[in-house]
């Protein structure tokens, strides 16, 4: 079987399964909490604004939409770090990303399906196809609810261009990652960040393939990216030792959210972590799989 055909087959399997749909549903349900929070906030703000306008204009109410209100870039779920939805989605991100297809390699190994496929296509081709499908399913599975949230929030509040003087509200400061882009082209900033998250989600999802090479239990494999992220987050406590130094954010738990976490994110750390993850998951996995006897 040719590689292209195999990739197509694996991608079809990855996107047309109940776990992928469940991930999207869980993700959307969590991001809805952010929208619920926004609606409550808007209701409160409207009441306050009406009160203010009444006082200012001797009881005559002007257009309430004219005052300072919520805007898209600090109201969508990855634009604010305060709502329960944002908190839940950020920290469940490493769990959700491997549910769509992170289990497949482990299951196909235990059922013996992998042997049939390797006979027909070859070990390397099978691994590459599985890697691509897991990467894409992981990335799309967690990015899609974010895009849905962004679009839904865009339908509710205007996409005003962020102003630098309100940087404390936006949480994107002078030294923050891509801050210039955020204040000049906010939509491009959101797209770039979603792409970074997509790459991280895809690479973390492929970690489950690496774990499946050693462990037979599929739910353990699926949860392995989360446990690894959590452990790495704990180990940052050994790196951030001086409270007077502004370190770069290295914890994957915080890098994925544009404004959550104490330290700023940088391109160098992002590229380094992507390279390490790619090296571990693809190069090591590919080498091992090529030499590994499946029978």
């Amino acid at each position, binding site marked *: 079987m040719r590689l292209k055909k195999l990739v197509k087959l694996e991608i079809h399997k990855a996107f047309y399964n109940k776990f992928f749909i469940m991930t999207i549903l869980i993700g959307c349900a969590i991001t809805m909490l952010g929208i619920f929070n926004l609606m409550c906030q808007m209701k409160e703000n409207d009441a306050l604004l009406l009160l203010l306008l009444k006082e200012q204009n001797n009881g005559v109410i002007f257009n309430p939409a004219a005052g300072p209100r919520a805007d898209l870039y600090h109201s969508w779920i990855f634009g604010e770090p305060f709502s329960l939805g944002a908190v839940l989605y950020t920290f*469940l991100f490493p*769990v959700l990303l491997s549910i769509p297809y992170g289990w497949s390699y482990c299951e196909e190994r235990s059922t013996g399906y992998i042997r049939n496929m390797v006979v027909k296509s070859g070990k390397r081709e099978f691994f590459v196809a599985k890697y691509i499908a897991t990467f894409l399913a992981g990335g799309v599975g967690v990015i899609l609810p974010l895009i849905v949230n962004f679009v839904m929030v865009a339908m509710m509040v205007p996409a005003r261009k962020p102003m630098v003087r309100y940087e404390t509200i936006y*949480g994107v400061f002078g030294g923050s990652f891509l801050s210039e882009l955020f204040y000049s082209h906010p939509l491009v900033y959101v797209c770039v960040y979603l792409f970074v998250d997509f790459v991280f989600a895809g690479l973390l999802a492929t970690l489950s393939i690496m774990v499946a090479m050693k462990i037979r239990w599929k739910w353990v494999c699926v949860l392995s990216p989360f446990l690894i992220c959590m452990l790495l987050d704990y180990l940052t406590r050994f790196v951030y030792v001086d409270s007077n130094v502004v370190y770069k954010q290295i914890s994957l738990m915080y890098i994925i959210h544009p404004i959550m976490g104490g330290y700023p994110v940088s391109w160098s750390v992002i590229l380094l972590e992507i390279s390490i993850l790619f090296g571990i998951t693809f190069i090591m996995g590919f080498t091992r799989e090529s030499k590994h006897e499946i029978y």
Partner: protein
Amino acid sequence: MRYIKLLHLDLKRTMRENIENLLYPLVLGALFGAEMWRALCCIQESGVHQTIALGDMILYAYGGMEEYLPIPGNSFEFPTIWFLVLGLSAFSVLNWPVRDLEGTGQFVMVQTNKKSRWWLSKCAWNVCATLSFHMILFLIFCMLCVTRGYALSLDFHMEFHRFLFGLPPEYIDERGTELSLLAYFVPILFSIALNMLQMAMSLFLKPIYSYILVLSILLSSAYLLRPYMIGNYGMILRQDWLISNGVSIHTGILILLAIMIGSTLAGLWKIYHLDILKKE
């Protein structure tokens, strides 16, 4: 087959097949010890004489986080240490019951003629496994105290925790410097109740979804300090003996016991109605 024999079989098999679960508390204990030692060195380098005791280690692992206030400039910080302890404890008991149900458990049910015995032995196994997780962690803390010369008492030093967690000075009421045994017992009871709930939910949903539910409970509780968010009972820093607006320990014990009983009954009901031969 007698119930106690079933429990014995479960314990023996998990010891043999899931021995790596014992590694989690060992690794955690070693990491926690290393971080506390580093923090202590940092404090002592600045010229402050600081000692720690067993109570500090328990507070470090089961403390959780202070109340989170969602205001600008205060983004949510993940309580990693508390999460690692409770999340890994739940993870260590996640797989076994479902795995057994798909394999040997079916033969056990046929031989005992009663599904309830199998389920009740799993409940008892769950309690034993969770307790052993926390027991190992406790023993490692004791060993660290003995080897590093820290006091083997339940005393805690709030200055040390302010340094570690960045707690505001006005946050903690002065309620003595000794950890009460009950305060230590409630997080462990919470861990048992959570693992029982997870195991019962695994019968209704897939294990991964029940684990997501557990993680959501832990995260929501860290986010909101409310009596109905049961995770707050698992955080010593949020108990009423330590802070004025904390959650009541006694109410917590009642709620957690109710969850344990409820989970057992729900699982019992489900296992009676479950066609085990069709189970994936």
